[in-house]
């Protein structure tokens, strides 16, 4: 009697916890999906808006589905309407950004690899202070260097040019690339390097034969980080360039703000997607490396 009572109440209890568990589980998924829709909402709106005609935009709502695959606003955003003066479109600025990003990523990554290598494998007295000296560059608000930088670019004769922006992005990328490579190389056993030195291998030989072959992951992290930062930069681009030399983010902003004619939101959204798509592709393809860079270098605003 006693026993059966005990077991049945126990069963009841278990049953109850099973139902609460199921309820909690549904609740969990509900919240997660709710947030996912909040995060996906702007991207969805951008895509459907870019596929609508202005007529559809005025009649439908943000969420309404486009009547067809109307790619005209994409063509206008990328290549313009072809009426000459005043016709702004993204194609030339897209190439400006490519011309700016490729050398700036290359130089800053290379310099960072070298300094990271020296700071961990060819240590000298006070190297910790040198690292701290470089690291501090990650944190400064760039407003504190804008004025002298503008003058310097003017003196060098490269203000309002892609070359000027390459210089700026290379220099202010060095603290981050150094940080990445230094933190990676510090976990590579120094014995390897010591043995190679005894065998008579020199500075560059050790780097290219021992360090570089195992550096693939950190190179990917650094390149993705630098690419995303430089592609998305607006402060330097808008301060040091205008007109034809502007990178894509600056051109996008000018296009959206220009109030010459009727606002064409579909063209605005297509332009925004075009400006965002390279970094988005990199993120989707190499998310793991993107997040690794983010969690170790995200101090930059």
């Amino acid at each position: 009697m006693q026993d059966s009572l005990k077991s049945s109440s126990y069963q009841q209890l278990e049953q109850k916890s099973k139902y609460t568990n199921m309820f909690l589980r549904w609740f969990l998924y509900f919240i997660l999906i709710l947030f996912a829709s909040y995060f996906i909402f702007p991207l969805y709106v951008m895509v459907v808006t870019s596929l609508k005609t202005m007529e559809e935009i005025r009649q439908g709502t943000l969420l309404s589905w486009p009547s067809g695959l109307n790619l005209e606003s994409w063509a206008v955003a990328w290549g313009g309407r072809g009426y000459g003066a005043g016709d702004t479109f993204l194609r030339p600025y897209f190439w400006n950004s490519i011309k700016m990003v490729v050398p700036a990523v290359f130089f800053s990554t290379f310099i960072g690899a070298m300094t990271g290598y020296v700071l961990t494998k060819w240590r000298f007295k006070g190297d910790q202070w040198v690292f701290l000296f470089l690291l501090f560059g990650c944190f400064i608000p760039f407003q504190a260097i804008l004025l002298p930088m503008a003058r310097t670019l003017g003196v060098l004769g490269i203000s309002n040019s892609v070359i000027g922006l390459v210089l700026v992005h290379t220099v202010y990328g060095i603290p981050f690339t150094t940080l990445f490579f230094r933190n990676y190389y510090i976990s590579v056993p120094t014995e390897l390097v010591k043995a190679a030195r005894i065998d008579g291998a020199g500075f560059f030989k050790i780097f290219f034969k021992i360090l570089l072959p195992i550096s693939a992951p950190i190179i990917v992290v650094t390149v993705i980080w630098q690419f995303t930062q430089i592609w998305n930069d607006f402060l330097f681009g808008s301060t040091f360039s205008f007109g034809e030399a502007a990178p894509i983010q600056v051109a996008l902003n000018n296009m959206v703000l220009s109030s010459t004619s009727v606002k064409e939101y579909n063209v605005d959204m297509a332009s925004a997607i075009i400006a965002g798509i390279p970094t988005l592709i990199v993120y989707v393809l190499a998310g793991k490396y993107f997040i690794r860079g983010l969690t170790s270098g995200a101090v930059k605003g």
Partner: protein
Amino acid sequence: MFKWLEKNLPKIVMAPAVGLIGWFVYGFVLWTLYISFTNSKILPKYELWGFGQYEKLWASRKWLIAVDNLLIFTALFLIFCVVIGIILAIFLDQKIRAEGLLRTIYLYPMALSFIVTGTAWKWILNPTLGIQKMFRDWGFENFTFDWLVDREMAIYTIVIAGVWQSAGFVMALFLAGLRSVEDEIVKAAKIDGASLFTVYWKILLPMMRPVFFTSFVILVHISIKSYDLIVALTQGGPGISTTMPALYMTQTAFHKSQVGLSAASAMMMFMAVAAVIIPYLYSELRRENAR
């Protein structure tokens, strides 16, 4: 000669980086500091003028609005990012199906520029064709959501877009933190009869102190420097109601040609960042040395 070169090769390789940072970071900050003590207008002047620019700065209504906005933005941005980030991290940590997909969705805004996302939000928040119209078309005829063009409320639209952009990042930090906790600790607590809620509230979250600290530093840093998002979303308007220090600095320097004054505002920003970063670097270095 060759011997010397070989011996000093590492230092020679280091030299360009150290030289560039020395000149372009430290030299430039010192130049800005010096200029903030002069009466420079369009062109820099080099005779010292004392604290005049700082007095002018703190007497300027626009700067006070900018500082006010920064405080409002930072507080709300911090609270919402951390709360949403923690909720998402804890929920994702419950052996969820399609976790990878959800994580990708929560974090993708970080891959986009503030100009791109600002353009999207501007379109969504505009009263004539955006969310307001959507709800009105659905039958809520008196629905109003015009914060973007409302002086009092426009700053909160920047919070909405900013939180949307950065909350996923806080989620990633906390998820990594939770995953690095030993399973044994959780198991032991469960055997002792602790509920899942207690495990998180009493054991795991207190263990996340360093993650809280890191998120705090990064988010404050982002908010002090926020510039692109405001340019894309409101241009500091309506009027000057959403001006923030970074926008104030560039406008004063490049539109109003008040070089001395803008240098003073840049140095205020520099000091605000230093006040957050120096304790952070100090504690990070101590942790690294302790290892």
